[in-house]
C-alpha cells in the first residue's frame, strides 16, 4: 500500500502544483477573444449542470457521479462463479460505478480531473490527469485486475493459510476418502495492482521529455504442482503464494526539428531530423524464494539406500520413498537495464532513414537454495560431499542487443521503396557452473543427472525489401521479400540455425466509393542450417517445429462494401498454413492450418437507430506424428512401425454478435442491447497407423491410442439497457444482463476408471465432478499417486439487474477507460 499511497500522493501534489502555477500564468497572458469564446463554450456545456459546478475566477469545478445497485435474479454459488469473475467483480448491493471531479480553467485549455470506475469493487480503477496541451501531460492510473484461477479448490491440508509458503498435511497423511471429501479452500486468485505514473513535458516545440513509472504489485496465490518421486508420483497440486512487485522506470528525451529551413546547414538535403534517447530500469522482487510442500504419501522422510556392491539405490519399502516435505524454488528477484537510441532523417524524394540501437542487461543473483530437503538423506548417501553448491549464487547475466535500420523512399511520384535490417542477439554471460551430484526429487544423490549449466545464445537477423506502386488513385500493388537468419551457438541444440525466405505481394483497391479491397499473399520457405543433431535416441527422425524445415503460405483478403450510405458490410478471409515433414522428419509437428472467415455489418437507416452484427469462424487443424517406444535399442518394440500414431488437433471457434442502439426520444430516452455467442470446440483425434502388434499384450495396449473426448466451451452474454435523462442534471440507467457459460473439459473432471490397474481398461465414457483429490488409489488408503486441488471452472447461469442514477451525466467519464499498462 505504501507504493500506491506514494504514487497517488505524488500525483495529487503535482497536479496541485500544476494548478497553482500553470493556470494563472496562462490565464494572465491570454485574456484573448478566443479564450473568452472557450469560456463561453464551457459555460454553455455546463449550463444544464449548474448545480454541479462551482465557478471561480480561475475556472470551473464539475462533479459527476453514477451510483446505484445490482441485484441478481439468478446468482451462481461461490464455487460456481470462478469463470464469471475471472477478471472482474460483480458484487450485489450498492455501487459507485463512475465518478469524476473535473477542473476546467476559465482562461486556458488545460484539463484536470480525477476519474473513478467501480470504486470500492475488486476491479476498481482511478485516473488522475493534469493536461496542458503542448506543455505537459501528467497521469496516474491505477487499475486493479483480479485473476481468479479457481473457485473450486479443495484440500485436506493447510494450503498456506496459516503460514504462507508452508503447505502442510495432517499426520498421518489423509487417505483417499479424506482427499475426495476435502473442504473447499476458497478462491485461488492473484490481485494485480498496476499503477502507471507518466509525466510528459514539452519544454520547446522540438523537445519532448517523458517519464514513466509502472508499478505492478501482485498478491495472492496460484496453483502449482510437484512430484515427490519422479514421474511415477506421488504428485500433488498445491497453492503457491504470490507476493511480487515489478517496477519499470523509463525516461526518454525526444527531439524533432520539424521541417527545417532551407537556408540552414544542409537545409536543402536534410528536411527534418528526429531522435530519441531512452533509459529503462526494471526491477522484479519476490518476497518468497521457495515454498515447502508436504508429501501426501509420507509423513517421515525415507531416503533411497545405497548398495556399495551393486552401486545401486533401492527404496526400502519399494513403494514410497522420498522426503516428507519438499522445497520448491520460486522465481528469483531480478533486474534489467535498457538503453535505447533512435534517430531519423528526412531527405529529398521523401526519403527517410531511421536507425535504432537497443541494448539491455538482465541480472539475477539470488542465493541458491539447498539441493535437497530430505533429512534422511544425510545418513545413507555416499555422494553427499559432492552436493555443495560451487558458488553461493548464479551471478546470472544476460545481454540483449538490437540494431535496426529502416529506409523508405519515393524516387518517382507513385513509387515507394523500403528496406529494413534488424539484428537481435541474446547472449548469456553467466559463468558456467558444474553440478557434481544432484538430488532429483529429494530421494537420493545421482551422478548421472549432474550437469554443467548450458546457455542457449542466438542471433536473429531480418532483412526485408519492399516496393509499392500506386497504379491508380487509391489503388496500389506491393511486392516484398524478407529473409530471416536464425543462428544458434553451434552444437547447443539440435540445429545450428535456420534461414527463412518470405516473398509476398499485396493489392489495395479503394478507387470506388462503395468498395475497398485488400488482398495479400505470402510464401515462406524455412530450412535449418547445418546438421540436425538428434539429442537422444528418443527423438530420432523427429524435428522440433522450432528448427524443422517449413513451407508456409498466408492469404489475407478483406473487403468493405457500402452498397448504400447507411449500410456497411465487411468481409474477411485468412488462410494460413505451415507444412513440415521435410528432410528426414517422420515425427513431430507435421502441419498446422488455420482458416478464418468473418463478416460484419453496420446499418444506420436513420440517425436515431444503429444496428450491427458480426460473425467470425476460425478453423485450425494441427497434425502431429508420434510413436510409442519401449524395450532395448534394436528390439522390435523400440522402433515398431505398428506403434506409430497420428494426432489431429482440431479447433473450431465461432463468435457471433448483434447490437442495437436506438434513440427513442432525442436527448432523453435511449435503448441499447446486444448479444454474443462465443463457441469453442476442441477435439483431439488419435489414430494408429495400424493395429499395434509385435510386443506383449501390455505393450501393444500401451501403444494403442484413441480419440480424446471433445472439449467445449460456450459463453452467451445478453444485455439490454435503457437510459433515461430525467432532467438535465439527472439520468437513470436500468440494465439487464444474462450470461450463460457452458464448459466441458474432461481434463479437469473425474474419470470413471473401469480398471484398477494403472494401464489399460476400456475407453472411459463418463466423467463426473471435478478432478478428484486422489486418483489411482485404493479406497481408504493413501496410496494414490496423483493429488489435485479439483480446480475447474464450473458452468454457470447468471442474470442480474443494475440500476444506476447518474448525476451530471454529461461529465461522466466514458464507460471504457484506458488500461494502466
Amino acid at each position, binding site marked *: 500500500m505504501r507504493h500506491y499511497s506514494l504514487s497517488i500522493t505524488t500525483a495529487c501534489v503535482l497536479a496541485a502544483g500544476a494548478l497553482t502555477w500553470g493556470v494563472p500564468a496562462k490565464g494572465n497572458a491570454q485574456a484573448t477573444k478566443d479564450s473568452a469564446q472557450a469560456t463561453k463554450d464551457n459555460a454553455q456545456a455546463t449550463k444544464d449542470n449548474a448545480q454541479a459546478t462551482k465557478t471561480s475566477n480561475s475556472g470551473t469545478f464539475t462533479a459527476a457521479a453514477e451510483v446505484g445497485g445490482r441485484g441478481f435474479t439468478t446468482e451462481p454459488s461461490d464455487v460456481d462463479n470462478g469463470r464469471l469473475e475471472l477478471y472482474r467483480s460483480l458484487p450485489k448491493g450498492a455501487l459507485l460505478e463512475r465518478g469524476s471531479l473535473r477542473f476546467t480553467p476559465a482562461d486556458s485549455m488545460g484539463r484536470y480531473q480525477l476519474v473513478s470506475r467501480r470504486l470500492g469493487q475488486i476491479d476498481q480503477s482511478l485516473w488522475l490527469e493534469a493536461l496542458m496541451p503542448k506543455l505537459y501531460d501528467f497521469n496516474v492510473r491505477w487499475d486493479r485486475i483480479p485473476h481468479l484461477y479457481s473457485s473450486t479448490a479443495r484440500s485436506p491440508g493447510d494450503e498456506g493459510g496459516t503460514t504462507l509458503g508452508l503447505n502442510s498435511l495432517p499426520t498421518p497423511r489423509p487417505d483417499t476418502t479424506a482427499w475426495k471429501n476435502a473442504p473447499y479452500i476458497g478462491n485461488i486468485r492473484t490481485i494485480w495492482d498496476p499503477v502507471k505514473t507518466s509525466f510528459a513535458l514539452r519544454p520547446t516545440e522540438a523537445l519532448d521529455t517523458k517519464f514513466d513509472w509502472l508499478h505492478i504489485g501482485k498478491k495472492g496465490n496460484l496453483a502449482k504442482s510437484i512430484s515427490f518421486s519422479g514421474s511415477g508420483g506421488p504428485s500433488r497440486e498445491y497453492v503457491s503464494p504470490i507476493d511480487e512487485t515489478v517496477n519499470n522506470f523509463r525516461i526518454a528525451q525526444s527531439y524533432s526539428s520539424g521541417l527545417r529551413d532551407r537556408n540552414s546547414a544542409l537545409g536543402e538535403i536534410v528536411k527534418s531530423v528526429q531522435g530519441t534517447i531512452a533509459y529503462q530500469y526494471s526491477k522484479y522482487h519476490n518476497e518468497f524464494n521457495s515454498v515447502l510442500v508436504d508429501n501426501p504419501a509420507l509423513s517421515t522422510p525415507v531416503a533411497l539406500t545405497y548398495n556399495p556392491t551393486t552401486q545401486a539405490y533401492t527404496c526400502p519399502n519399494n513403494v514410497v520413498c522420498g522426503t516428507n516435505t519438499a522445497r520448491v524454488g520460486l522465481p528469483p528477484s531480478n533486474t534489467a537495464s535498457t538503453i535505447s537510441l533512435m534517430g531519423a532523417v528526412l531527405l529529398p524524394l521523401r526519403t527517410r532513414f531511421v536507425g535504432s540501437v537497443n541494448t539491455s542487461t538482465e541480472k539475477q543473483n539470488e542465493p541458491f537454495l539447498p539441493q535437497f530437503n530430505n533429512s534422511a538423506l544425510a545418513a545413507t548417501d555416499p555422494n553427499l560431499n559432492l552436493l555443495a553448491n560451487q558458488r553461493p549464487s548464479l551471478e546470472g547475466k544476460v545481454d540483449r542487443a538490437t540494431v535496426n535500420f529502416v529506409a523508405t523512399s519515393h524516387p518517382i511520384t507513385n513509387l515507394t521503396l523500403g528496406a529494413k535490417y534488424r539484428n537481435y542477439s541474446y547472449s548469456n554471460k553467466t559463468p558456467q557452473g558444474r553440478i557434481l551430484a544432484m538430488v532429483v526429487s529429494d530421494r537420493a544423490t545421482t551422478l548421472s543427472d549432474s550437469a554443467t549449466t548450458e546457455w542457449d545464445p542466438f542471433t536473429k537477423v531480418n532483412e526485408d525489401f519492399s516496393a509499392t506502386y*500506386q497504379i491508380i488513385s487509391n489503388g496500389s500493388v506491393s511486392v516484398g521479400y524478407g529473409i530471416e537468419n536464425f543462428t544458434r551457438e553451434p552444437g547447443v541444440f539440435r540445429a545450428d540455425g535456420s534461414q527463412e525466405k518470405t516473398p509476398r505481394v499485396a493489392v489495395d483497391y479503394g478507387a470506388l466509393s462503395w468498395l475497398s479491397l485488400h488482398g495479400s499473399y505470402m510464401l515462406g520457405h524455412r530450412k535449418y542450417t547445418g546438421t540436425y543433431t538428434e539429442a537422444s535416441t528418443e527423438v530420432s527422425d523427429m524435428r522440433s517445429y522450432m528448427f524443422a524445415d517449413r513451407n508456409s503460405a498466408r492469404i489475407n483478403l478483406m473487403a468493405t462494401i457500402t452498397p448504400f450510405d447507411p449500410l456497411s458490410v465487411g468481409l474477411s478471409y485468412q488462410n494460413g498454413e505451415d507444412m513440415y515433414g521435410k528432410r528426414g522428419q517422420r515425427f513431430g509437428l507435421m502441419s498446422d492450418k488455420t482458416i478464418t472467415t468473418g463478416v460484419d455489418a453496420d446499418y444506420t437507416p436513420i440517425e436515431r437507430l444503429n444496428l450491427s452484427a458480426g460473425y467470425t469462424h476460425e478453423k485450425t487443424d494441427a497434425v502431429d506424428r508420434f510413436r510409442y517406444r519401449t524395450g532395448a535399442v534394436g528390439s522390435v518394440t523400440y522402433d515398431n512401425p505398428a506403434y506409430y500414431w497420428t494426432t489431429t488437433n482440431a479447433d473450431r471457434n465461432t463468435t457471433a454478435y448483434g447490437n442495437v442502439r436506438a434513440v427513442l426520444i432525442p436527448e432523453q430516452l435511449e435503448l441499447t442491447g446486444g448479444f454474443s455467442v462465443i463457441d469453442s470446440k*476442441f477435439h483431439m483425434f488419435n489414430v494408429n497407423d495400424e493395429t499395434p502388434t509385435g510386443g506383449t499384450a501390455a505393450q501393444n495396449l500401451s501403444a494403442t491410442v484413441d480419440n480424446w473426448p471433445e472439449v467445449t466451451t460456450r459463453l452467451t452474454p445478453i444485455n439490454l439497457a435503457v437510459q433515461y435523462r430525467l432532467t438535465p442534471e439527472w439520468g437513470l440507467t436500468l440494465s439487464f444482463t444474462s450470461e450463460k457459460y457452458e464448459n466441458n473439459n474432461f481434463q479437469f473432471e473425474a474419470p470413471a476408471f473401469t480398471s484398477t490397474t494403472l494401464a489399460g481398461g476400456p475407453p472411459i465414457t463418463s466423467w463426473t465432478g471435478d478432478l478428484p483429490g486422489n486418483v489411482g488409489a485404493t479406497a481408504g488408503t493413501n496410496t494414490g499417486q496423483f493429488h489435485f486441488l479439483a480446480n475447474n471452472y464450473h458452468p454457470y447461469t447468471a442474470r442480474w439487474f443494475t440500476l444506476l442514477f447518474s448525476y451530471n451525466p454529461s461529465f461522466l467519464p466514458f464507460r471504457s477507460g484506458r488500461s494502466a499498462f
Partner: protein
Amino acid sequence: MRHMRYVRWLSVALVLFIAPRMAIAQQKQPPAGYAGSAACVDCHKESVHQFEATVMGKLIKENGGVKNGEHGCESCHGPSKAHVESGGDVLPPISYSSKAKTSVTDRNASCLTCHEKTSRTMWAGSTHESRNLSCTDCHVVMHDNTERSNLKKASVLATCGSCHREKAAAMSKFSHMPLGEGKMECTNCHSPHGSPNEKLLVASSVNETCFSCHAEKRGPFMWEHLPVTESCSNCHDPHGSNKIRMLKYVPPRLCQQCHLTPHGAPSGRPEDQASVRFNYNKGCVNCHSQIHGSNHPAGVFFTR
C-alpha cells in the same frame, strides 16, 4: 517534506516551460487561397462546434497556439477558398472522408506535420503505412470519442479489431488476457504507429514485451528452457486460446512436439490411469512445474 521539495522544483520547471507560451500570435487576414475559418462555420456549424470542444480544436482555435495551425480549419484541409466560393462543389484540397479523392499519403502528411514525434517517428515504412492506412482510419478528429487518443471506436480493442477480426475474436477464447474486460489494450504490447521490432512490438522481442509484466519469467535462471529463452510465443498464443494458460496446443501434445515419448509412457489414451499425470490437469507441468526456468540446483528437469 522531502517530497514537497521535489514538487516545488517541478512546479518551478512547469512555470519556466509555460512562460514561452504566453505570447500568442494575433489573428491574421487569410492569405491568398485561404478562406479563413469563419467561412467554414456558415455550413459546418455543428462540426465546428464539436471540434472546438476537443483539445486539438482548442489549440487550433488559439490561432497559432499550435505550430502549423495558424490557418484554422485549413491547417488540415488546405487552402479552401475555391471550396467556399463554389458553395461546396469543389472539395477542399485535403479531405478525409472515405469517399474523398485525397490520397492517403497526402492525408497522413497533413497529420504528421504536427504529429511525427515520439511513436510516429517510425510511421514511414511501417506495416500500417505500407498497407495504406490513414490516420483517420483509427482516429477521429472532429469530436471527442474516447478517453485518450480519440479513437474511432469505443476502445483500442474495437479499433484494432475492425481489421484484425480474428485477433479480436480470440480475446473471447477460454484463456485470454483481460482486453475484453478493458484491463489491457492492444497498445500495451504493440505500437500501431510503427516499430522497428517484429509484429510492431513495443519492446525489442516477444520475451522483453512479456517480461514488462511477467518479470518473474525473466531470470536469468540456472536451468534455461530453450523454447522459453527464444520466444514465449513458441508455446503461448498471447491473443487467446482454448487451452489452459493460453497454450497453443493442449498438454501433453505441446511438449511432445519436441519431447516425443516422455518417460516411455502411453499418452494417447485418457483411460489409462498411468497417464493421468500426462493427460489430466496441467499435463507435463503436473511435475515439471518450473518449466519457464529453474534456479534450484536440483531443477535441471524443472521439477524444483
